[in-house]
């Protein structure tokens, strides 16, 4: 059977070019980058070269790049590190209601440690209003963390504006850019952020490796304690193959960004137009301020997990914010934050594209999905009631 992967917001395939770059660092150049001998020095060279490449993409100095184990660690470090380093200054943090759990659950933890958190609500498209952020700033606010783009509904947040507001008030600004790399231009000078998180596996790099960009001069408490790696700020033997892979992947992902994304966005638009033309299907997230690969819809009267399983049987990999898939039995906090009632949040479907998707993939989905929706609706008591009311 044809297998179509449209869950690229969850993770991506590592591109063959990236794997090829990584391979020598497992078996030939396997040294510990902290060792003094030449095997170690070779690893160190690769590590520093990777750091330079990442810095070139983000437009910062290599000394501002810290390699981590991924987006979640970067988010944890940014928030906990800033909260603990600024205890004397204050205990108030501002974030949004639609952040990734790596931010929200870290905030919940910090609340238990005595921090106070303001969760800025979003509008029906998932946008944070910068004026709301400004109004929430207090004298004891130490940090604002707003994501660059939402992982579920693809909405791109006005982070440049928010960063400017943060700085006007002397507050640090962090952004979780995990979904943004390779999708929109990410230049830390232009954004004006003090910290930025990213993760390699979202842009055809390996899993388990990420970056926290920390602007020079920003004080953060260490998160990982141990050896003196990453200039004494993040302990653990560097994952050299992973870091080399990350550097290659971020370079490839940000080359010809516009051209590549124009093609992906065109495919996405076919999905959005084709699917929202079906009855009782709505688009979630902003129509234009949107990641090029993100299509998130709610299909009324059916439930997301059943939809995902049917799609999987038809060879299509996707994801849903439905309660039944979350393990928590509540639908996604993002869908609730944009104001969807439970029943509609329940029937959500996210199809996320990358440059590995083709026109044939999109055609197949557009041909397959309507039949699946019809089958599930024919089994739905909600649809039956709705149709009877319509009569």
């Amino acid at each position, binding site marked *: 059977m044809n297998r179509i992967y449209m869950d690229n917001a969850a993770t991506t395939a590592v591109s063959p070019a990236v794997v090829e770059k990584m391979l020598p660092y497992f078996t030939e150049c396997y040294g510990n980058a902290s060792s003094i001998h030449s095997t170690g020095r070779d690893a160190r060279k690769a590590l520093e070269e990777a750091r330079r490449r990442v810095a070139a993409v983000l437009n910062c100095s290599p000394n501002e790049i810290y390699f981590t184990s991924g987006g979640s660690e970067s988010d944890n470090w940014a928030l906990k590190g800033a909260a603990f380093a600024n205890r004397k200054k204050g205990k108030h943090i501002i974030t949004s209601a639609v952040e990734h759990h790596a931010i929200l659950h870290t905030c919940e933890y910090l609340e238990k440690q005595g921090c106070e958190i303001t969760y800025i609500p979003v509008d029906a498209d998932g946008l944070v209003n910068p004026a709301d952020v400004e109004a929430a700033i207090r004298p004891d606010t130490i940090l604002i963390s707003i994501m660059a783009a939402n992982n579920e509904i693809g909405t791109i947040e006005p982070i440049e504006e928010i960063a400017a507001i943060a700085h006007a008030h002397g507050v640090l600004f962090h952004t979780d850019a995990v979904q943004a790399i390779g999708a929109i231009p990410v230049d830390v000078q232009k954004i004006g952020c003090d910290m930025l998180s990213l993760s390699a596996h979202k842009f055809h790099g390996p899993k388990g490796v990420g970056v926290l960009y920390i602007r020079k001069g920003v004080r953060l408490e260490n998160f990982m304690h141990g050896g003196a790696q990453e200039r004494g700020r993040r302990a653990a033997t560097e994952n050299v193959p992973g870091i080399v892979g990350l550097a290659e992947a971020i370079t490839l992902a940000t080359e010809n960004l516009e051209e590549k994304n124009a093609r992906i966005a065109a495919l996405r638009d076919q999905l959005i137009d084709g699917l929202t033309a079906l009855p009782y299907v709505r688009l979630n997230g902003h129509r234009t301020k949107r990641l090029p690969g993100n299509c998130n819809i709610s299909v009324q*009267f059916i439930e997301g997990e059943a939809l995902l399983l049917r799609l999987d049987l038809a060879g299509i990999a996707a994801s849903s914010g439905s309660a*039944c898939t979350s393990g928590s039995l509540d639908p996604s906090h993002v869908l609730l934050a944009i104001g969807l009632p439970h029943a509609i949040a329940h029937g959500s479907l996210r199809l996320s594209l990358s440059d590995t998707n083709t026109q044939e993939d999109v055609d197949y989905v557009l041909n397959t999905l309507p039949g699946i929706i019809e089958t599930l609706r024919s*089994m*739905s008591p909600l649809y*039956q009631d709705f149709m009877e009311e319509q009569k």
Partner: protein
Amino acid sequence: MYSEKVMDHFSNPRNVGEIENADGVGTVGNAKCGDIMRMFLKVENGIITDVKFKTFGCGAAIATSSMATEMVKGKTLKEALQLTNAAVAEALDGLPPVKMHCSLLAEEAVKAAVEDYMKKHPDAVI
């Protein structure tokens, strides 16, 4: 994460649909996740001669609905009332722990449909 039996009943659900002028209809909602199941019964001489269902819910909810209909078809009302969610789950070769609550829906929908029948037929004996 689902057994083969669950996937079989999910992809080819038995007895899906509705019964016109059913003798008993029960609709129940899952307090935990908001999912909904509806059961239709045809009853003759105290025996369930036909049963159909409609479900808005996850894969486990659909599979347990389907299995429950198979388990009560041809049974007496009394037997149907004795159906437990554990028995339905077992007949499906088990459910993941987080999905056990979905099978409750099936048990409750059968009970609600039988109760509806009893209400409409107060003289019926089980």
